[in-house]
């Protein structure tokens, strides 16, 4: 066991949803495509929301659970690929809104969907080295997809946040972590391009599967653990099918994956994706259980973490809304309203 862990966790999912079937009808996709992706509907940020406001909501919930004075947080890492400003940190807005400023590190990280996970690793390392007492890692996105692209079925809005701190105050202590990255061009967005491009089938085997499998196998080899030692397995979830397939390849049964599978209900929230899954697992985990979580980011890389749940978790589960509360709270939007919310109309200022 290491000397750091998760002290508090928080989720946020915007209220609005659009059904995948509505997107399929509008763009003339074969009706079975959304089912093939394992996604029924996706969460859509309201017109006054963005990655920063989503991140603040999730982080506020994480702080409520952690019960830590915000001034004791010494690092804020914000992982997103939907930065409201290309230049001007989102992390400082989050830190200011939550009363963490001014005595803190703060920066935005970019590694496609894995940036927030790198933020977790960095914060855990800073805690263990004694540089900071607590750190905050936030993953939030209002994921972009070109209208009509297959990505539009899944690209969703939401986020999760974690207060990281000493093992003695943790609800889930870090047992170990293993990271695997290479230069793999599976998904990208150039500077002034509004929508990402992707390598179609290339996003699967050489990217998602190779990196997650390598990270998880690396962790198992390093720790001597086996899939049967884990009670939950959470993977990055770009759709509803990939996490179940990678679990099968690694030897994790479906029942250990389903508790942390949120994409079928809310879509792929990019930096929120696997971390919302982790939050949903923490919402229901019991002391002594072991959790595997393996976020993935295109470009490409994956971190495989093993966490052991402590006795403190039960009292903190009720301190903030759970992922399922947000999944259940929803208002459907039609495509025209969704297009307004996501700024898809070309308009002059009114």
């Amino acid at each position, binding site marked *: 066991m290491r000397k750091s862990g998760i002290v508090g966790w928080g989720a946020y999912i915007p209220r609005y949803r659009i059904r995948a079937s509505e997107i399929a009808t509008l763009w003339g996709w074969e009706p079975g495509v959304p089912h093939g992706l394992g996604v029924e509907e996706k969460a859509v940020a309201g017109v006054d*929301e963005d990655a920063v*406001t989503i991140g603040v909501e999730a982080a506020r919930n994480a702080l409520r659970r952690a019960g830590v004075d915000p001034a004791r947080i010494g690092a804020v890492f914000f992982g997103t690929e939907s930065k409201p400003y290309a230049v001007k940190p989102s992390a400082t807005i989050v830190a200011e809104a939550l009363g963490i400023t001014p005595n803190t590190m703060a920066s935005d990280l970019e590694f496609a969907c894995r940036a927030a996970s790198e933020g977790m690793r960095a914060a855990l390392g800073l805690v263990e080295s004694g540089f900071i007492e607590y750190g905050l890692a936030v993953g939030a996105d209002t994921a972009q997809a070109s209208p009509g692209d297959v990505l539009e079925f899944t690209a969703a809005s939401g986020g999760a946040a974690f207060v990281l701190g000493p093992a003695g105050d943790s609800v889930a202590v870090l047992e170990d972590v293993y990271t695997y990255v290479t230069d793999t061009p599976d998904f990208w967005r150039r500077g002034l391009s509004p929508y990402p491009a992707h390598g179609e089938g290339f996003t699967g085997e050489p990217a998602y599967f190779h990196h997650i499998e390598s990270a998880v196998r690396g962790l198992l080899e390093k720790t001597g653990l086996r899939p049967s030692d884990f009670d939950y397995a959470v993977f990055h979830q770009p759709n509803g099918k990939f996490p179940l397939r990678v679990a099968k390849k690694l030897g994790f049964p479906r029942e250990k994956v389903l508790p942390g599978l949120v994409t079928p209900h809310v879509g792929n929230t990019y930096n929120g994706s696997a971390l919302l899954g982790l939050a949903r697992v923490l919402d229901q985990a019991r002391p002594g259980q072991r959790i595997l979580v393996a976020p993935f980011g295109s470009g490409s890389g994956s971190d495989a973490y093993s966490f052991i749940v402590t006795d403190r978790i039960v009292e903190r589960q009720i301190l903030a809304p759970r992922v399922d*509360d947000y999944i259940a709270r929803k208002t459907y939007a039609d495509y025209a309203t969704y297009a307004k919310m996501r700024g898809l109309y070309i308009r002059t200022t009114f």
Partner: protein
Amino acid sequence: MRLSPAMLWRTRIPRYRLVGRECLECGRRHYPPRPVCPHCGSRRLRDVVLPRTGTVETYTVIYTVMEGFRDRAPHVIALVRLDDGTRVLAPLTDVDPSGVSTGMRVEATLRRIRVDGDTGLIGYGLSFRPLMEPRQGASK
């Protein structure tokens, strides 16, 4: 609609954290913070973090919105009485106007209030949305 960096910077703490003022003479609170107590005229004030939950006292629905707010229309503005009694005027979000009623419970949230075109600043600030209470007991 140009957003001034100085204005956004000066007002960020009250807008981000719902910080108001309490009068050291009459004990009453107000928001947003002013240099003089609006209730008794005293200048002896202290900053206070106000409660984030409250009740809608009254509201109006604006269809003829100001420039820059067409994508918010119809825009609901409410007078919210916070749980400590402080009254706050702010937008309601995540609601359809037909779903708003006096007496509804709301909570403060940070949202985009104004956006200065495609190249200017984004003004974040206070909105209220329907209250979401954490449920008791464990989930399945």
